[in-house]
């Protein structure tokens, strides 16, 4: 933590005193803070980001030629509205349009959202299976190598 990590531009406020208090307080909690790096919330957040957003499922032996991205899972057409501009019925057509759009959304969106959420879960499961598969392949290779050495 640098010396001037906060800025308060009021000359009546003693920023140095505040920083000192904060230093003392954080030092008090130092013993109870997660000691293992893996338990640190920042590390948890980074790992989760990598798992859910960053890494696309690359083509592997298990998923031959298929690349499943997070964005492919979302199938909800969020920007679609039924629209027409024929000024013959005046405000009536606006009401009809509003009604149709609202009804379609009410009927379709819950199902599409559920499907998107399911897609994302499937993607996550595939990713885990893919990792597990890669690990098992590696193990098989090691076992085969050790077996080959044993035979000689």
């Amino acid at each position: 933590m640098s010396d001037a990590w906060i800025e308060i531009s009021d000359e009546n406020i003693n920023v140095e005193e505040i920083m000192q208090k904060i230093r003392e307080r954080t030092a008090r909690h130092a013993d109870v803070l997660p000691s293992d790096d893996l338990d640190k919330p920042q590390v948890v957040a980074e790992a989760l980001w990598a798992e859910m957003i960053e890494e696309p499922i690359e083509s592997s032996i298990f998923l031959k030629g298929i690349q499943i991205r997070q964005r492919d899972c979302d199938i909800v057409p969020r920007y679609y509205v039924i629209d027409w501009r024929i000024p013959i019925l005046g405000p009536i057509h606006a009401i009809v349009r509003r009604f149709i759009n609202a009804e379609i959304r009410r009927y379709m969106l819950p199902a599409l959202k559920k499907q998107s959420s399911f897609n994302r879960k499937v993607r996550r499961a595939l990713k885990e299976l893919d990792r597990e598969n890669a690990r098992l392949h590696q193990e098989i290779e090691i076992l085969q190598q050790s077996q080959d050495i044993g035979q000689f």
Partner: protein
Amino acid sequence: MQVHQFHPTVSFGDAISNQILSLQSLLRRMGYRSEIFCERLPTHFEGRARHMSQYASYSSSTNVLLSHFSLGYSPAVLDWLEKVPDRKVIVYHNITPHKYFAGINDVYLEAAQAGREQLNRLSRAMEAGWGDSTFNCQELAGHGWANPQVLPIVFDPKRYAVRPDRRVLKRWRDGLNVLFVGRVSPNKRFEDIILTFYYLKRFVQPDARLFLVGAAQGMETYLEFLQALVKRLDLPDVIFTGHVSKSQLMAYYRSANVYLSMSEHEGLGVPLLESMHFGVPIVAYGAAAVPETLSGSGILIKEKNYPAVAEMIGLLVEDEELRTRIVTQQRKRLEAFLPERVEACLREMLSDLSAYGTSV
């Protein structure tokens, strides 16, 4: 004498639409005829705004057209703007850098990327560039705009004279309430707010609560990540409200003890002004236009040290004198955004414009 405005779409409640409506009131008060034109006209806005196809009957080379820019225009709008003979001014509200949307929303990513590229093309079609902040103006200058000027956001306290939702007030009246208001978007770094809250809850104030107020439309993947993080860190007191009504928003501000922002990209940050108005002390990470918006008020963080920020929040809640001083400074800062101040600024900018061409 006419000064009209254009934006691809308008709606009730979002910051840009509020600015457009506030500017229309100011312009009309200043004696200009002023209408709002859109490419996509929402049904509930009919009567308050017109479709851009109707602009032909208003268009004139002596008019000024303020064209608001926030995400990029469609090719149809770009062509239309180039053909319109009016004196055109871009009002730049900034575009979130596209890198933030990678893996989260491709439509936003491409729109943000295209929008930034359009800034260069627009600099040739427009007469002047205005931005909500110096930060936005600097970005315009970086895209070849000569002498961009700052037209501040209008903060009209009358818009906030709404009775706060009683149920929200009653439900959350006890404990320490930390608030952040804004669309769920990765540039706002909700995960950093959650991480700070983790330390606040575990080591400073066990009865703390975090309200994350804002819609997540189009950002479902990011929202899912945030919800998974909250679950993994076992933080049941993090509340994602989704889109809220105006009266509910008022109630959240009234219930809040601290406003915490960890955002890394803001063109201005209207919720910061709202916090100033509601007397909620601000703790904010100093990135993009945030330091400029606060301009010495609130508490500006230069480093994302979560345990230390959590302690700062605890201290702010405990120390009444410190809180009062911070809130007083914030109220003073808010004055720069009041309608009368912005009106003077707008008047000057329009007269500057007329000094360089035919009279406005």
